């Protein structure tokens, strides 16, 4: 089963802490390798916390660990980092800034 969401990427305290440990450290991979969604969305998708899911946008896809958080229904959050960047396009609409928030995304349980 696949479901459509709005993807938001952003900074987290853990990601900020872990980046000093090295971008190839387990700590950084864990801090940037998950996707969050609301409980109703998780239940509707029939996936458990900790399960791996595939997130796909028009620009790429990433396999991430699913976590539950207090998010509006229909929204997913991925911490900024290499996994989030796999999902973001390079079009900047003449500003230099890619659309890193508000992208349409699909989530598929693995």
């Amino acid at each position, binding site marked *: 089963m696949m479901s459509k969401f*709005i993807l*938001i*990427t*952003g*900074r*987290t*305290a853990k990601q*900020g*802490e*872990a980046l*000093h*440990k*090295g*971008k*190839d450290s387990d700590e950084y991979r864990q801090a940037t390798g998950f996707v969050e969604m609301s409980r109703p969305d998780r239940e509707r998708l029939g996936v458990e916390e900790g399960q791996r899911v595939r997130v796909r946008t028009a*620009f*790429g896809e990433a396999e991430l660990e699913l976590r539950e958080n*207090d*998010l*509006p229904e229909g*929204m997913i*959050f991925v911490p*900024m*980092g*290499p996994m989030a*960047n*796999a999902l*973001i*396009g*390079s*079009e*900047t*609409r*003449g*500003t*230099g*800034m*890619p*659309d*890193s*928030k*508000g992208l349409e995304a699909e989530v598929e349980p693995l």
Partner: protein
Amino acid sequence: MRMENVVCPFCGCLCDDIVVEVEDNRITAVKEVCSSGRSFFLSAHTEARHPTVDGKEVEWPEGIDAAARILTDSACPLIYGLSSTASEAQRKAVALADVLGASIDSTSSVCHGPTTIGIQNQGEPTCTLGEIKHRADLVVFWGCNPAEAHMRHFARYSVSARGKLTPQGRRDRTVVVVDVRPTASSSKADFFLQVRPGSDYEVLTALRALLKDETLDVTDVGGVSVAQLADLLERMKGCRFGVIFFGMGVTQTGGKHLNIAELLALVAELNAHTRFSTMAMRGHGNVAGADCTLTWQTGYPFAINFARGYPQYNPGEFTAVDMLARQEADAALIIASDPISHFPRRAADQLRRIPSIVLDPEVNLTAQEAQVVLPTAVYGVSAAGTAYRMDNVPLPLKRVVDSPQPTDEQVLDWIIERVKTCSA
């Protein structure tokens, strides 16, 4: 040895009250610091390291020579990064771009670049963090999450900080968070307005309309009821000193600089009623300094190209993501940044394909892919320098331990000299 009033260079807060304990030229403890700052100080690389060329250790002259060769062989070199180095090095990077006829861009273009474009269109009613600490009684955080990204901002400047006219700190302030999702910051606010993703422009326009006593013929805008917007506006008009801090939630979403121009227009218009100000939540420790230094060196803050022998400015053309995604840049010098970790995949892939040089104390993902890696000292840890806080106040970074590594400024100087020799 205990060193007090050390400036943490990690984020745009530049907290200048850090206590660092040093034994045998090693940092043993960091106090009065957030978890990111502590991790920054304790993980900083200050040991002796050689440059590498194609993965092999070389002496410094050989490393500089290889870097200069890549840059002089390039038809369209890109210099990028700059926001985690000192302003002294940023100045040298501009000089190198001038000598090469290169493009130069900072990480500003993927954080608050749209803010700068918005400010250029609209003007910026702003102030210092000191004024906010002492005077602000209404603080709005729009599309930003300082509880996770600027962890001491609330305590030092904006929420619980006690000032001359805010002696009771948190009790003297009303705190509002506007965001698309509940966050660690919204849980600390008196009011949380949850807007629909991508609707910041509409919500800001609705506030401007209400400020002009227009009647809205809708019941909600962007997921927020008109009654809630009217309540927020009355608080804004009625406060003694208000401020809107804003972040990536407004700059990275559709509309970008137009969202910012609308926010700045609202704040300017509120000044007909009370004192109101605004400030971008700058991420990297000296990203504000990159904007300031590039502006006083070239007239422009980012997205600059020297190909014609004089600086030209054009976001979307000379910005790093665009130059890489369009496969225009054919060589890159990356200073104190990790674009392979933080750029969209298409731009990052191009950076992997072209010859690149990295100046950085850390071996990040970009350095792992670079032909030439020049490991430098850490400003604020093993080198002194200047950084600009998010309110554009410059602060001196201290050297708390010694390191044999040269600074970015020194290395850029060596590259400039070598490039001039190669060109001659």
